[in-house]
């Protein structure tokens, strides 16, 4: 399953809910304000790194760049472009957007 989160982890609980519900082997794609969670020094970074053991973590590159965060991405996070976003949706049989 593909989980998509678009809310900042320091403002909403969407990422936390997502990580609690995502089963082993699932993919989590962070877009829009959710991308701050995969940047060095953010309070969500430790949660992301712990989750990366069981989940595949992706972040949308254009959203990172638009926030000045392109150079601050945590190790182990896969940065994808819009084409990669489409591929992820196509590769997974279902997806859940944590609005």
């Amino acid at each position, binding site marked *: 399953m593909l989980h998509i989160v*678009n*809310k*900042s982890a*320091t*403002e909403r609980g969407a990422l936390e809910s997502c990580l609690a519900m995502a089963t082993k082997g699932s993919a989590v794609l962070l877009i*829009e*304000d959710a991308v*701050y969670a995969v*940047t*060095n*020094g*953010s*309070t969500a*970074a430790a949660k992301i790194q712990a989750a990366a053991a069981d989940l595949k973590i992706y972040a949308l*590159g*254009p*959203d990172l*760049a*638009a*926030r*000045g*965060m*392109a*150079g*601050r991405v945590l190790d182990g996070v896969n940065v994808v*472009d819009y084409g990669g976003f489409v591929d992820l949706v196509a590769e997974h049989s279902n997806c859940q957007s944590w609005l």
Partner: protein
Amino acid sequence: MSDMDEMDDGSGIVKKFMFLNRKAPHGTVYALEGLEVVLITAAFDQDVSMVFTDDGVYQLMKGIDSKGIEVKDFSKTYRALEGYDIEKLYVDQKSMDARGLTEEDLIVDVTVLSVDEMANLMAEQDVVISF
């Protein structure tokens, strides 16, 4: 100037305005709208403080490149605020720490305040407008 005159045109009345920015840029329209209201306020010669807390500190990041999401990059406008006599820019230390940011990461010179200092600054305002 009599009280009556002041009521007629309002000239000479300077209030302390705080614009409190708590949202990240781009994900919502708050950051851009807040910036536009601040620029309008500058025309009225008021005592303006601009404050960035919580995700609002992300508005001031250096190196923003928003071409890929096809939205306006308004981050450079913060550097123009000085030209409008808006020179009181404050960020919250705790918010910066929680996001792994330092003053070096920001596009403008700011004053970093503790939570207590920020609380006192807010308490002394005539008007607080939140975005």
